[in-house]
């Protein structure tokens, strides 16, 4: 139960950070900027060892926001470098996010073809 509560609070707070970035900065900041910023930020925080503690604390509260996607990219790259050397820097990130990316492309394509936009 505590795990669920922590996922709610931490996940919610990460989204509040994004909302503040959208509301308090220039209106030229679009959702695309926010998503790119969160992924890149997640990679950097993870590389500095600052994101793993958040994942240990909040589970899905830290992995479901897109910064968790960045964390997965960075950890994949680092682990693969440990195993395979320099080659791992290029293979690890994509390997560790493969399920998410392939699911996004496949399901995204299927539902875009299947459904039509409202209005």
């Amino acid at each position, binding site marked *: 139960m505590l795990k669920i509560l922590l996922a709610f609070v931490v996940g919610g707070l990460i*989204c509040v950070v994004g909302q503040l970035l959208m509301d308090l900065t220039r209106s030229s900041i679009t959702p695309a900027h926010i998503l790119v910023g969160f992924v890149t930020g997640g990679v950097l925080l993870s590389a500095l060892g600052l994101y793993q503690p958040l994942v240990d604390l909040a589970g899905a509260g830290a*992995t*479901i926001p*897109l910064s968790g996607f960045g964390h997965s990219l960075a950890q994949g790259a680092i682990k693969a470098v440990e195993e395979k050397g320099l080659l791992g820097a290029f293979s690890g990130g994509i390997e560790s996010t493969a399920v998410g990316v392939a699911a996004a492309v496949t399901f995204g394509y299927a*539902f875009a*073809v299947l459904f039509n936009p409202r209005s």
Partner: protein
Amino acid sequence: MVAVKGNIEQQQEQESQREEYRLLVESVKPQHNVLKNCVMAFLVGGTICVIGQLFLDFFISQGMGEREAAAVTAGTMVFLGAFLTGIGVYDQIGKIGGAGSIIPITGFANSIVAPAMEFKREGFLFGVGAKLFTVAGPVLVYGIITSCLVGIIYYLLQ
């Protein structure tokens, strides 16, 4: 003397018109209610993460490893986000939740399906195929570049 007086009156009139215009703009401009937006982002984003946590716990209870379960959870959430976008429900969640609906991975799925669906009439190659990556493209480009750099720096520091 009369001409100067007329000038001053004209200036005053212009200024009052400007003031009126400023007030009009202020009244028409959409008001950001930052506090309300943040509360809604917190509630919606938090709720989506709780749904993710429930899936994660379920997959772990089925005997999956932690990393594997996290990947399958991401895939499941992407499926849900894409489906809800297709049936038009995710737009409604987005209107309520703002960043709370954008930042979770379901919002990433939404950013893939919505433009692809919108531009379907431009064909399956440059409509659906290309527009799938309107937002996902930049996200993957910058995410992958940064993670490669992190890997290279880690390799050099080892």
